[in-house]
């Protein structure tokens, strides 16, 4: 359903994403991993239209969406969340979700308020519906971002580090929520540092390093890939340094 073809994004002399290609099938979960600065968020921004790629094509459900405005891409069915959560802090939790319903569809659906409550019920925030979004704790704000993205009626959800900064039990809650979203037929593209999340959720993993794709396959295969191990653990040391000795 999503095809990323040779996408490159340059910022001046810096190539943040370099000729990356991958595909994501309907109903699947694809994990995108890589060290800091490897281009994961930039790729997300290209897909969601925040900045157009310098070259390459992004095709979503047989439609070329390369360079479309973010609100158009949202209305075509791609929802997203942010690494640094961005709820509309001066609005209520419910109003955040209502906005997704009111603007995220090509035609504004009826019964927005009831639908908003259903979505909040689903993510477990219905008790906070009238609270200001700015007053929520991090885990709740992450759930609110998911709820707001769901409200736009996506068939693909881009999730940027949805478990980072959460406690173990909180991130387990999020994993369960994402599984349930996926069971409802949504495809997920997740960027994650917490490997447990990637391993337990993804059907397939794409690894980026310095903007390039270095591995692509099932999670267990990728985890044993020599390139990936090198990138994460560094080159094998050539000279032995004895542990515990001050250098």
């Amino acid at each position, binding site marked *: 359903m999503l095809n990323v073809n040779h996408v490159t994004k340059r910022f001046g002399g810096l190539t943040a994403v370099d000729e990356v290609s991958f595909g994501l099938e309907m109903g699947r979960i694809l994990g995108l991993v890589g060290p800091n600065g490897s281009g994961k968020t930039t790729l997300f921004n290209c897909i*969601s*239209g*925040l900045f157009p790629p310098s070259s390459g094509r992004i095709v979503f459900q047989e439609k070329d969406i390369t360079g479309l*405005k*973010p*609100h158009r*891409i*949202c*209305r075509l069915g791609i*929802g*997203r969340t*942010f690494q640094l959560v*961005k*709820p*509309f*802090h*001066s*609005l209520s939790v419910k*109003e*955040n979700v*209502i*906005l*997704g319903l*009111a*603007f*995220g*569809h090509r035609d*504004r659906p009826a019964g927005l308020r009831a639908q908003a409550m259903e979505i909040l019920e689903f993510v477990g925030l219905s008790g906070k519906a009238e609270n200001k979004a700015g007053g929520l704790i991090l885990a709740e704000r992450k759930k609110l971002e998911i709820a*707001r*993205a769901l*409200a*736009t009626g996506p068939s693909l959800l881009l999730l940027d580090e949805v478990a980072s900064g959460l406690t173990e039990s909180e991130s387990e809650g999020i994993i369960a929520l994402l599984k349930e979203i996926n069971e409802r037929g949504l495809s997920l593209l997740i960027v994650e540092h917490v490997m447990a999340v990637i391993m337990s959720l993804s059907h397939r993993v794409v690894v980026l390093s310095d903007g390039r794709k270095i591995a692509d396959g099932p999670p267990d295969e990728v985890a044993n890939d020599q390139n990936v191990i090198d990138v994460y653990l560094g080159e094998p040391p050539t000279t032995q340094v004895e542990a515990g000795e001050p250098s």
Partner: protein
Amino acid sequence: MKKSLLIGLVIMALGLVVPSVTDSEYYLHLFVLAAMFGVLAVYWNLLDGYLGLIHFGYAAFFALGAYTSALVTTRLGWPLLPAFAAGGVVAAVIGGLIIIPCLRMGSYATAIVTLAFAEIMRITATSWTALTKGEMGLWGIPPIFEGAGRTPYVYLITAILAAAVVVLSLIVRSYTGLAYVAIKDDETAAATTGIPVKRIKLTGTMVSCGVAGVVGAFYAHYILTITPALFGIAYTIQIMAMSLFGGKGTLLGPLLGAAVLLLMGEGFRFMENYRLIMYGLVIIATVMLFPEGLIGVVKRGGRLVSRRSGS
């Protein structure tokens, strides 16, 4: 909907009562000015308080409406109603054109571009003497009500104010109004939630500038003489001070701010041009001491009293 209409009716009632309380030309004139600045402060606040767009050249669109209406009536002999509409449309269209390049910039750049545009307009109005008579000002503008004193002007500006406030309150309570606040909170998140950020900023600015244009047209046909000073930063600062002092991001705060500051301004008339310093101080004091504005202070006071009496 009901609440919006109620606010409108209260404003109308106030306007109907004022001329029967006082027949002093001076007080009626003050009321007209307060209502006029009230509309301007309320619609400047639509940009700053709701949409998060700092417009530093707002008075220029007021002046543009005034000049447009004055010129089409005196030069082309247009009747007043289409002249008012022309004032609004010209201000809205030019207001929109100026904001288009700003949509790619941050809010500080927008402030500078709008400020610079207002200055360019002022200098143009000063220099293009063939059209505007320059510093001499345009005069001989036909009045709205021939030889009828101030009372009908009070009624008319009150009606404009009531309509303006009702419309704004409907906008603010609509989904578009929610989207305004969303854009102010986070533009990126707004865009990825399906909100057409640029289009909403553009239409919001056009509405706001258009209203300023209509009020400008009213001003031209009320005062009957207009000069390029109307384009100047002084008026914009005055409108900003009223809006911020009253309470930004609230519906009626700026209206309250306009009334209070205008009366205060009359009290400080002896200071002449130094009055501008007062507006500057008001802005600084508001932002530092009570950023939620007068209406926020009143609300907080109200809660305090009700809590005391409750316990």
